[in-house]
């Protein structure tokens, strides 16, 4: 499946500055894995030793994957995955 991934600005330096990147996979986990393979540097920002960093939210289309099947959530062609890190500036 070809899925678009929305890249937050702090990570765009690892993906040639692009706001949207295409990646392949049948689940959210596979898509993010493919993204990490294509763009080294993304992986360690998204994951720590135990999985997705808890302050990084991932949405499939509009829905938080924590309320779907987490990283095992299946994706289909044309879906949009958004990576949204928690920010706190004011």
């Amino acid at each position, binding site marked *: 499946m070809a899925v678009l991934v929305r890249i937050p600005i702090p990570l765009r330096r690892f993906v040639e500055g692009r706001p949207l990147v295409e990646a392949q996979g049948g689940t959210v986990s596979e898509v993010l894995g493919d993204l990490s393979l294509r763009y080294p540097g993304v992986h360690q920002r998204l994951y720590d030793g135990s999985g997705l*960093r808890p302050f990084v939210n991932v949405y499939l289309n509009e829905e*938080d994957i924590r309320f779907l099947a987490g990283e095992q959530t299946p994706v289909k062609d044309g879906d949009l995955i*958004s990576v949204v890190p928690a*920010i706190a500036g*004011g």
Partner: protein
Amino acid sequence: MFSFTEEQIRRYSRHIILPEVGGKGQRKLLSSRVLLVGMGGLGSPAALYLAAAGVGTLGLVDFDTVELSNLQRQVIHTTRDLGKPKVLSARQTIEAINPGVKVLEHRLRLSSANVMEIIGGYDLILDGTDNFSTRFLLNDACVLAGKVCVYGAVFRFEGQVSVFDPKQGPCYRCFVPEMPPPGSVPSCQEAGVLGVLPGTIGLLQATEAIKLLLGIGRPLIGRLLLFDALEMETHEVRIRKNPDCPACGQDARLEEPRDYAHACESFG
């Protein structure tokens, strides 16, 4: 209900002629009390417009004094205000814009010891803080007190806005369950932010605040608005109430607010 003075009718005429506001709505604004936590990049523009709109009482929380590096975005303060407490500087600007607004200065750091008493005096809270630990503390307090909090946050060229109403929807910690670990990320001072960005986000917060006070429109409850200034795009995702939320979940054992270890944020 009180009647308007001649001056108020003229000052608020562009509100009063809106059917969705009218005299009734303007009176609601004039009798409302909003607490702005943080008189920085978000709180500055929000305070200017809430004051102009005639929100009757504005509480301002900030411990800091005005520094030169603030003035690139904290537009309620001016070069003449350097060195002044931010709450004083903001108060003087608000009073110049609209002397009908009552300003209450809370020059302090929000902590578990004072947060409940401070928020207790207000109808609505606007979160314009600049760090995770204060956001967590403020959220706990709003959940405990059942107060609605209009959330905004910025980083570099991106911003987020939502409305956390613990009675009807998710809270901040349904969205951010855990703080980024200290040291995992560069400090706030190193991060940088496009000066106009908190202006945009702070005014979206002020817009939501006024809608909530008036009871009009569809607020951002359960919705996170994401703003990307570089692409000039917005999009929206859903924030669901987390049944296991450490603050508002069914097993949350929140009895009083607590202080969180300071973690300065950012990512990448």
